[in-house]
């Protein structure tokens, strides 16, 4: 009985600490958003979501700076992504306006807006809505964003340059992954990471888990405190990724923007999923 009481007390303490942490994190987030103005940048007008918990959401928003009204479409299995579309015309047709993407990591985060082209249909009833994208969207270019890594924060042109450079590397890596083939379908980032990490960053794995073509006698180069197998790089990766991998930059991209890579990799299947009709119901708040 005493042991049980102790267990209950410990569990209660853990729950209290978790609530405390979550509450404080929320407080800090709201304070930060209020200070940087993002909390007041948009006003939510209405929110729709699929009836299933893990699905698609669509939020009618008004941008306070210029009064632009649009719809932000989000997917629960791609956190950080918001696809912004125009309000539907009378015939229900909408244009894809831009994408907002946010990805966080232990040392900071990347966030950016990207112009994109595409379209579809959105039909809204009083308490329901249906959304359907037409074909795959086309990403155009990152138009703005911010980066934070530890105490270093970039915005404006500095951030844009770094984000576009990172996007190029991510696109090149995603393209290599696609061309390599043989990968299963992924529904979450964790599965994607578990599958690709042994191919992309075998140096981070124990020796027995490395690919069969791994040669320990290869020429090595030290970067980011890791000895990179240059022969493996040349045998497996296209030339435009050699320097990126051997310099440790690929590792940094993986650690700091892995979910961004996952997003780019999943682009077609994501819009393929949205090409079907998605039924939404209004969420009262």
């Amino acid at each position: 009985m005493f042991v049980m009481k102790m267990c209950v007390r410990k569990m209660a303490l853990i729950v209290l600490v978790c609530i405390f942490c979550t509450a404080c994190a929320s407080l800090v987030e709201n304070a930060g958003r209020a200070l940087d103005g993002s909390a007041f940048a948009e006003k939510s007008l209405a929110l729709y979501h699929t009836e299933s918990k893990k699905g698609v959401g669509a939020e009618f928003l008004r941008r306070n700076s210029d009064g632009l009204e649009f719809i932000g479409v989000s997917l629960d299995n791609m956190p950080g992504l918001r696809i912004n579309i125009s309000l539907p015309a009378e015939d229900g047709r909408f244009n894809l306006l831009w994408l907002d993407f946010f990805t966080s990591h232990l040392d900071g985060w990347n966030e950016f807006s990207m112009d994109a082209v595409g379209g579809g249909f959105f039909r809204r009833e009083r308490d329901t809505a249906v959304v359907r994208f037409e074909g795959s969207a086309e990403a155009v270019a990152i138009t703005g964003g911010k980066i934070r890594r530890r105490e270093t924060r970039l915005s404006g042109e500095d951030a844009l340059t770094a984000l576009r450079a990172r996007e190029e590397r991510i696109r090149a890596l995603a393209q290599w992954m696609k061309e390599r083939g043989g990968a299963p379908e992924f529904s979450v980032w964790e599965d994607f990471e578990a599958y690709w990490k042994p191919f992309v960053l075998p140096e981070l794995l124990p020796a027995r888990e490395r690919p069969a073509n791994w040669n320990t006698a290869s020429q090595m180069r030290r970067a980011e405190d890791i000895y990179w197998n240059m022969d493996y790089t040349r045998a497996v990766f296209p030339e435009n990724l050699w320097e990126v991998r051997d310099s440790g930059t690929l590792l940094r991209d993986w650690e700091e923007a892995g979910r961004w890579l996952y997003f780019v990799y999943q682009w077609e299947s994501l819009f393929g999923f949205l090409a079907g009709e998605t039924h939404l119901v209004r969420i009262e708040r």
Partner: protein
Amino acid sequence: MIFHLVVLHRDMRRIHFIAAVFFLRLFSLYGREVVIRVEDGELGLPLEGAIVHSWDGGVFECDEEGVSRIEVPDTGRVVVRVSYPGYETGRLVIGALSGDEMRVLLRLGGVLESRELVVEAAAPEGGEARPGRSVGVSGESLERTARVGIVEDVMSSVKLLPGVGYGSSFDAMPSIRGGAPRDIMAVLDGFYIEYPPYHWMGAVSIFDPNMVSAVRLSHGVFSARYGHTISGLLEVSSKQPPPGETAVDVGVSTSAATLNIEAPLGKSGGLLLMGKVTYWDPVIWAAKQVSEDVRMVTRAPYIRSGAVSANYRFTRDLKWSLNGFFGTDGVGAKITEDYAEGAAVNSMDISLDYTNYIGFLSMGLVWNPASGTVVKTVGGVGFADEGAEFSQSDTGSVRYSQDFLNTWGSRLAGATSYEIRQDESMSERISLLNYQGRVDLDRELGGGFLAAVGSQVLYTVFGAKEILHMLGEDEAPSQLLGDDGLWHDYYMGYPFDYTLDVRNRSLRSSGYGLLEYAQEGGGFGAELGLRVDHLRLSGRDYTLSSRPTLSPRLNLDFELVRNAGALDSLGLTAGTGLFSSMDDNVVFIPDRGGIEDGEFRLNRSWTSLAGTKAEFLGAFSLSFEAYYKYIFDRAYQNIITGPGTPEEIDFRFNGEGRVWGFDVMLQKLSSRYWDGWLSYSFTHARYRDPQGIARDFAISDNAAVGGGWYYPAFHRFHNLNLVVNIKPVSSFTITTRVGFASGVPRKEVGAISSRLVELADGSLIEKYKRREVYSDTARGGFSLPLDLKFSFFSYDPKSKVKLEVYFAVENLLSLVYTPKGDRDFNEYSGKEEPDSENAYEIPFPLPSFGFKWSY
């Protein structure tokens, strides 16, 4: 026929006109013209000949201005591609809301950018540390070493650097390369913090890691730009909130809460606000359960502080900055204790009340009037107000010991006990108001040369009120014949009343000029400078002026090897220079006293050093520096008092010092799995007060040795620090700090023995004394501080908020070892107090636990 042809021609013209009007009208309804301007992304140059591939398949070539015009529909969004040989293809979306002119920046293509575009943190060794001049800590190293313990303090990091002597766990006033701890001068972004920047009488500094980005300790031959110290200059760089950025940091721990907010200040500025509140009551309560010593604390030590930092860039060439700080701290203690002495019961009542306020506000401008020219100005005002009240009262009756009666019985008229009515008290209030300003001009001369000149004024008003009442006891110059037929030493007791009430003003003026040379591509560098300082001190009825002190300084840097195998670089440095500072105590000079004309001086030192630094394997650095420092014109004071003599403090300005030593540091630069450093410093410091008066009753330790050479009270021969950060996984860090410091000087003590004390009223009492004699060889126990911190980091992929949870223990080795000093004893009973032998350290580990959220 001709008529018909003419009519037809007219009709055709009309048709053409109508058609043209129709299509023009149609076009104005359907689309608009957009100007596309194509430029090189890095150089901003127009790219003539760039090809714009329009949304409708049209291809347009840019003119010499890099401009092309295309038509786009009014509704919907179209994608336009832009290409240029050698450049990556650019794309842009033109929508209904896009303007009529758009710019496309193309970047050179073909190679994926790698490292140079990965965001990098500040260099780990940071702080612009320069061999031969300074050591520094910034970025992650500062974060890890300063954010440990129940009070997060930047000085926790500084104390681990080579050349810094260990004080104790709660001593943020270290000796720098054998210099007096109070000689260290702190500068925040160019503003000199006149009053020592400490809380709790020097236990911790005012510099919270939340307000500091880097700290540099200059203890070598540093630039002639800086002065007002002969041992160490602590240059603290405040966090400069970047324009347009927002950050929120909240920390909650078992002993303190901190809040840091960074917000944009207009379009080109940033604002940082920091606040800290400690709440030590639970810690003190817990400590009281395990330590007798802590039970006297009535008001838990507290700190309330806030800081502001702001900057704004008016133009590309003009930047304004502001720093402000206000802090208060205090502590209260009271001991009321009844203790039995034989049949009598005595009472002891001690109370302490300490409060301190410190604040400053400074502003600076950085202006680039022309290419290669920088003008910097800093001005501000600072204040401090420190007050302490202390009183002790002993009352009761004490029985003479039998041995005492056997020796002095015939003089006691049959009495077997005596009454104690001993009250001692101290009341002190020190205030300071400081105004200062400086201007610096740097000018590049070309060919690797840079010239700089500058001037500074520090004007300070000091106020000090001190009332000291205590019992002075000096050994009598003669002996008394006891009942045992032997001659015995005895003491003469007298009331020691000292009152100080001064309001002094100091004006320090400085100027410098220097020439720097840096060979292009490295190889050789030099700096030659001359600094002039002057001090004018005036009191109620006196004025003292020092002679202008000239401080020439020379530094030479040689890079011997670069990129030779595993050796990335190997450099040599050598320097020599003179330094000066105002001694802290001279501001308390109440009157001119016996200070002769021309005798009043600034403290001086002549420092020479040579060192080397090697960096290898891209990850390690090893540095070695050896130095010799001759200190002269050092101020010291003699307390002149005794039975029937009015109390007087006599200032002298001919103190000397000889310090030599060396520092070694092996550093593993910040890395993915582990980093840290090992530093060792050997210091040999001997001081001399030529006109010092040797006496038993002395306020200053130094005065006890007369005119001979002595090791100052803060001196330690050996200081070793090991800092290791281990990161087994990215979300978990173990930070360890372990140190070894040999003991500080300790007086040789004799046995505790009974003495006769003749009080001023002629009564005779028995008191126990222990003869204490200065010794060159006696040392206290060594110190072994060990701190551990475990940090866990977490984040939510959908949120910008990071969480750090940490658990730390300071002074962990106190569980098995604490340095020992001499035991105190009761001067009326002669009994030793067993709990009083721990020296320098808090005798128990200090755990702390906290959270930190960062947006």
